[in-house]
């Protein structure tokens, strides 16, 4: 079993690596939902009821290949507020489970790419993560295909081991919310879309997604306007729809959004208004000179810095990919540190100081364009 200190020492690898396709596709994750027959759903259950569900599920989950070796396992009351906060920032726990207590369990795989949550909003919710993905059109989606196949294999093993509510043969599972019944799987793609956001085109994208029956929401859905240009595209389960049916359609849609983002970036690079150079330049200056930064300002600034890096406006001695990885690590580290600081007023000072130090310590060249480039 993994110890809590080991779990929290390093963020999950999938949050640190640069995204594919010009750093637009940050990752894919799959949410599997199942409920046991004969037990009330967690929201209508008592502590005893939830414990009974945990007793029925946890031993079997710990035998799955994903969690068999070196996994972290805890019942929620054993985790304090700061730990839950950090797990949330590491995307290793859902907000629903983070707020729960007795009879609720979390199991995290050794590689931190699979999380099983018992008595979340449903009896069992499993998240599987994968960083980025390569081109997925024209039969070139093998790596994502392998990832989704491994999810299906795990689900088949679980279906054989547990008596889930619904009909596994028909790929129809019951959930506490009737409108969410279906194949019990949702696919999410995490996208970094600074150019679309900068060009005020996210409204159009959202409208288009509605028509294509794909949902889109900001990644940081805490009710604030903190997006850091990261958005989640995701599917909804539907009765009789198999994972393979959703997958092909969904990744086609993702591909179209990515193409639009890349197209807008190229357009912005050559537009006479020089909006993108202005934005990257201002952000660069802010990170080098600011004395106070909020978490939102820092996240937004890092997003624009990533964009400037991918577009070669800023060239880093360590290389673009390596730089983005170290920037992601710094963002997570600072967010955790700021969120757990006792003196709230000290956090903005700390964030600005660490950003200035990072910019100073990382060798780079800022390529300012000439006005004649836009004639």
């Amino acid at each position, binding site marked *: 079993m993994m110890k809590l200190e080991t779990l929290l020492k390093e963020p999950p690898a999938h949050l640190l690596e640069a995204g594919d396709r010009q750093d637009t596709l940050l990752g894919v994750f799959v949410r599997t939902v199942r409920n046991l027959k004969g*037990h009330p759903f*967690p*929201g209508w259950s008592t502590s005893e009821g939830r414990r009974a569900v945990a007793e029925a599920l946890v031993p079997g989950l710990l035998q799955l290949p994903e969690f068999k070796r070196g996994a972290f396992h805890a019942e929620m009351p054993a985790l304090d507020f700061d730990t839950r906060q950090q797990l949330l920032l590491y995307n290793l726990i859902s907000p629903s489970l983070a707020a*729960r207590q007795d009879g609720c369990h979390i199991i995290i795989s050794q590689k931190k790419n699979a999380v099983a949550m018992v008595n979340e909003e449903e009896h069992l919710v499993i998240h599987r993560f994968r960083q980025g993905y390569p081109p997925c059109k024209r039969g070139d989606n093998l790596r994502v295909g392998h990832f989704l196949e491994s999810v299906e294999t795990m689900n088949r093993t679980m279906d054989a081991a547990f008596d889930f509510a619904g009909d596994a043969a028909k790929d129809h599972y019951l959930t*506490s*919310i*009737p409108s969410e019944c279906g194949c019990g799987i949702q696919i999410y793609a995490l996208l970094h879309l600074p150019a679309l956001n900068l060009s005020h085109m996210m409204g159009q994208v959202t*409208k288009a997604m509605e028509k294509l029956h794909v949902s889109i929401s900001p990644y940081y859905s*805490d009710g604030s306007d903190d997006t850091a240009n990261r958005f989640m595209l995701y599917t909804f389960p539907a009765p009789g729809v198999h994972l393979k049916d959703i997958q092909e359609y969904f990744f086609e849609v993702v591909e179209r959004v990515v193409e639009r983002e890349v197209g807008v970036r190229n357009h912005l690079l050559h537009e006479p208004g020089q909006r993108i150079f202005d934005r990257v330049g201002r952000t660069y200056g802010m990170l080098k000179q600011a004395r106070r930064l909020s978490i939102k300002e820092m996240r937004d600034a890092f997003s624009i810095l990533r964009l400037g890096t991918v577009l070669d406006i800023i060239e880093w001695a360590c290389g673009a990919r390596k730089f983005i990885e170290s920037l992601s690590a710094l963002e997570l580290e600072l967010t955790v540190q700021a969120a757990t600081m006792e003196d709230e007023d000290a956090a903005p000072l700390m964030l600005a100081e660490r950003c200035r130090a990072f910019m100073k310590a990382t060798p780079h060249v800022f390529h300012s364009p000439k006005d004649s480039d836009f004639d």
Partner: protein
Amino acid sequence: MFLTQIVNGKVTEMALCEECAKARGLFDPQSLTFAEKFFPQELQRQMDKIVRQLVQGDKEEKRRPAAEGCDVITACPVCHFTLEDYRRTNRLGCPDCYTFLASELNAPYGDAEDVETTQQEQPLRSTKDLEAELQQAVEREDYERAAVLRDEIKALNNAPKA
């Protein structure tokens, strides 16, 4: 459970028994402390919703007459979740609710009525208003909405004048 809500200096206090708290989505009182720390805005929204539901309770009852006295099963015999709980939370209590509350799930009474009410309450709009909205819909490339508006304008123009 005791809840105190303060909005713009106005204090609303509520005392709920365990069953009522559950029925209003406050399933796990222990989690409220964590929810308050993690998601203050979400919790605030949830509290606002509960207060609204309590205040509008009588009105709601009138709009959705209960099926008491009929032969229809109104509570799941396994987990005792009621139709009223479902209407309030849009959730079910256990997998067996799908069997026992099937009629409600197949014919969402409340939703149908809501749609009807909304349609009835919608004021009649002039051709000019509709054309302005059509123009906006075209500008934002919302062609689905634009088509609906186009048909509305057409119907309005073809309607016999009083």
